[in-house]
């Protein structure tokens, strides 16, 4: 059993809003995270969490201004433990359609595209955008990230764009909102969620715990 309190957990701060919630969630599962906004903080980290809300263009601009783009890319390329949350997932993609055509970190091949919304047509329920609220998440394969979490557990989503991944093997879990959406990505020590685990009650916190507890045991 990993001693979570002994881990050097870095939560990246790039002016992206909901930092405090992520910090509190990670503390609640027994770790002692540090908030950092410089690339050097990644050198000694046991795990890095990239949170985020807002728009892709702002996210990338903030990451660039803080000199975080290359350190993040190198960190992930070295297969060190990394968790992206919401915008922290979308930022990993090749490019995003949000507000134009914005190149992203290009760690995960694929594009971030607009959710297809629809209005109530008298028979079928509307699909509002943003996709906002609790939706069920279905893992496609076994992973330590979902230890203790039942298939179809509910997680809290809020997003208007989603990740259309080129490599199906990167998709760990999906949800359904008119189309099947990527809910969780995992590739070896890299994991990322479209939903907000820090806002998804007990099972959300369990995702953080599983991520941190699984360090060293790598890909399931």
């Amino acid at each position, binding site marked *: 059993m990993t001693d979570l309190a002994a881990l050097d957990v870095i939560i990246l701060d790039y002016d992206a*809003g*909901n*930092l*405090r*919630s992520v910090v*509190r*969630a990670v503390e*609640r*599962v027994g770790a002692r995270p540090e908030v950092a906004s410089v690339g050097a903080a990644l050198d000694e980290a046991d795990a890095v969490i990239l949170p985020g*809300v*807002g*728009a892709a263009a702002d996210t990338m601009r903030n990451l660039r201004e803080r000199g975080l783009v290359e350190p993040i890319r190198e960190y992930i390329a070295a297969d060190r433990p990394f968790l992206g949350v919401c915008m922290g997932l979308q930022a990993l993609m090749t490019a995003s359609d949000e507000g134009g055509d914005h190149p992203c970190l290009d760690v995960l091949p694929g594009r971030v595209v607009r959710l297809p*919304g629809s*209005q*109530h047509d008298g028979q079928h*329920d*509307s*699909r*509002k*955008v*943003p*996709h*906002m*609220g*609790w*939706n*069920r998440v279905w893992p496609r394969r076994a992973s330590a990230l979902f230890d*203790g979490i039942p298939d179809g*557990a*509910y997680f*809290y*989503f*809020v*997003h*208007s764009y989603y990740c259309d991944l080129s490599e199906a093997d990167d998709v760990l879990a999906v949800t*359904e*909102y008119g189309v099947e959406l990527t809910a969780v990505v995992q590739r070896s020590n890299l994991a990322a969620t479209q939903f*907000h685990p*820090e*806002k*998804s*009650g*007990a*099972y*959300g*916190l*369990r995702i953080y*715990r599983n991520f941190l507890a699984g360090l060293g045991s790598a890909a399931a």
Partner: protein
Amino acid sequence: MLTKRVIACFDVDAGRVVKGISFVELRDAGDPVEMAAVYDREGIDELVFLDITASHEHRNTVVEMVRSTADRVFIPFTVGGGLRTTDDMRLMLESGADKITINTAAVQRPALISEGAQRFGSQCIVVAIDAHTEADGRMRVYTHGGRRPTELDAVDWAREVVERGAGEIMLTSMNTDGHQDGYDIPLTRAVSDAVEVPVIASGGAGDSQHMIEAVREGRADAVLAASIFHFGTHRIADVKRQMQQAGIPVRMERADYDDVL
């Protein structure tokens, strides 16, 4: 399938929940943080805190409440009341709120909506609309806690706030609010059909049947209630079970933090 959300709303005055509370499990029935934790355990999907004093002297009290809530409750919550600038919004979001809600300030200066959306993302910006259906059928927007009529039509205003970047609309009917006789279905449906973003129905919840109607007939994406939960006449889990039995997708699981962690 995305579930329909059941949201509890607290009116907070100087850091205390107002409106009579008779929820037996609470050690401190007026403490919003304590109540938030209990409602989370009961399976509420989301919480809204409205600071009804909304004065600058009390701003620190509200920030403290937001911080304490974020420390204990790991579900989304919205804070509103007296927020007039993007710096006001930032203070709440940094303290741990997931969304902020604006009402009168948005009517007085609609650019505030787009400024907030640009700075924090649309998903954080909830515009609250108080509307009253007049004798001639017109759905008129009111401000200042329902005291001041405007010339705005609720549906037109809803379209405009979305255009300006609102990510969600919290729609309260002044006709039905406080009566516990059901939500305003025509108003809710008119607004929900007019906009692409989620609409929260508010005002008039008396039982689960009203919530079922708000979703089915009113096409609401979420239903908000205060008194029926605060007075303990309806338990959150019971309401959600009845909604589920009526065929509405709701989140039924109530996982306990200590059990899961």
